[in-house]
């Protein structure tokens, strides 16, 4: 149980920080913010890699492969489409 307490601290602080940082994003950019958030939620790819890279070919490894796939769709798709939108806002 003690193992989880530092994580709970991290989580709580990160939520406060998240509200602080995200509330500064102007309304104009809320759609790219959402697609960017999509990409960031793909961070779970890190966990997916650890599962898919196990030595033995078992259920966990196959599940890991699907998780890598879904998370990569988000990472690649999310960052690319967000960049596409920001490019539109930048040009004059």
């Amino acid at each position, binding site marked *: *149980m003690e193992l*989880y307490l530092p*994580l709970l601290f*991290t*989580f709580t602080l*990160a939520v406060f*920080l*998240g*509200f602080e*940082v*995200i509330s*500064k994003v102007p*309304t*104009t950019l*809320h*759609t*790219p*913010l*959402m*697609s*960017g*958030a*999509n990409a960031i*939620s*793909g*961070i*779970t*790819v*890190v*966990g*997916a*890699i*650890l*599962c*898919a*890279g*196990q030595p033995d070919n078992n*259920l*966990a*490894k196959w*599940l*890991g*492969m699907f*998780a*890598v*796939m*879904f*998370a*990569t*769709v*988000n990472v*690649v*798709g999310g*960052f*690319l*489409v967000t960049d596409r*939108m920001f*490019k*539109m806002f*930048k040009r004059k």
Partner: protein
Amino acid sequence: MSDALIQIAYLASVCCFIVGLKKLSGPKTARTGNALASLAMLIAIVAALLDHQVVSFPMIIAGFILGGVAGAIFALKVEMTAMPQMVALFNGFGGIASAIVALSDFATPRPEGVEGIVFASALAIGISVVIGAVTLTGSLVAFGKLQGLVNSAPITYSFQKLGNALLFLAIVALFIPFCGEGHPGWAIVVMMLLSLGLGILLVIPIGGADMPVVISLLNSYSGLAACATGFVLNNQLLIIAGSMVGAAGIILTVLMCDAMNRSLTNVIFGAFGAADSTGAASGEQRSVTKYSVEDAMMTLENASQVVIVPGYGLAVARAQHITHELGQMLEKRGITVKYAIHPVAGRMPGHMNVLLAEADVPYEQLIEMDTINPEFEYTDVVLVLGANDVINPAARTEGSPISGMPILDVDRARTVMICKRSLSPGFAGIDNELFYDEKTMMLFGDAKKTITDLVETLRNGS
């Protein structure tokens, strides 16, 4: 690479994420911010690949290729009008990826000497699977409604709320066997199946017009699922990045609810669109004055400030580009042109801004509701294109379904020009007094055609 080095790489990644997100505070730095966030993700992926636990690569590479190609195709092909659907779909993918990672961790045999699953890790696995599964099916239903694959009208039936509440309680109850002795696998499988069902049932009663709230909320869930997975894997990076997404989703959800003057509970359980549309047909026939394109042109040419109010109808008609052309022609005549953006003008937060940016409208001309409202008094002409409820003065009076909803005060301007197909009411199903006001010029017809005619007339007239 040693564990300590990997942790330091994760820390570097966290820093890049936060600085990247901070740079989203302005359109000028936003693109760099996004690039920084991508760099953060790259650092995290490389660090994970170098982890000593990772010894077999074929499955990882297969996942990268399949996911990467699909993601790139989505991102490069998607139309800006279809962004809400794409975000909905990606919310679902993020959620299910996190749930699968938690499941996979559960299925991983623990090596000798390593502590097995304890109460707290079982709890984290359960939460991750439940949130991830609800996010997946909820997002798929939202995607289907936005894409027009399923009827976007709210689906309601008797004992709906009770049924959903019971289903939710059943899921919660399953935590008891799952977190208890032995951590049976069946419990997590049943939990996941019930959660997949709950996701569908929670979103079907919500109408198409309320989808911006639903997408924002699911956006938040996809982040929380990643957070829960961070607890499962004892990984701080997942927790921090997931919290950022969770916070973003919550902020947007609250903003959207405020813009519609409705509570979150009301949006989720209210089944708005299903309400009877009383007041839509008040019976009495009133006359409106129809104006021609020439009348409109003369009024526009004599104005010194024109504010354009774009609605979703404009985007559907793909008329942003021609509207921008009209705006530029007016500017050439020395007229100040601004665009008033209501928070719920599109199908997701900030959607209208993206659609106008796509048509090269400079973002300086896109003015938020609170900033533009005091300016209407000094505005000569307001040109309303495919918007209705967001300009309905009925919101200021008691007893209307939209009472209290923040609106654009277009009726304070000298002349209000409304391009509309007919007098039909908007989503809220209520009549708009403004149509019958004597300072209102109704231009009936397809918005795109009307604007095109205006542009032609202006071009020939000068």
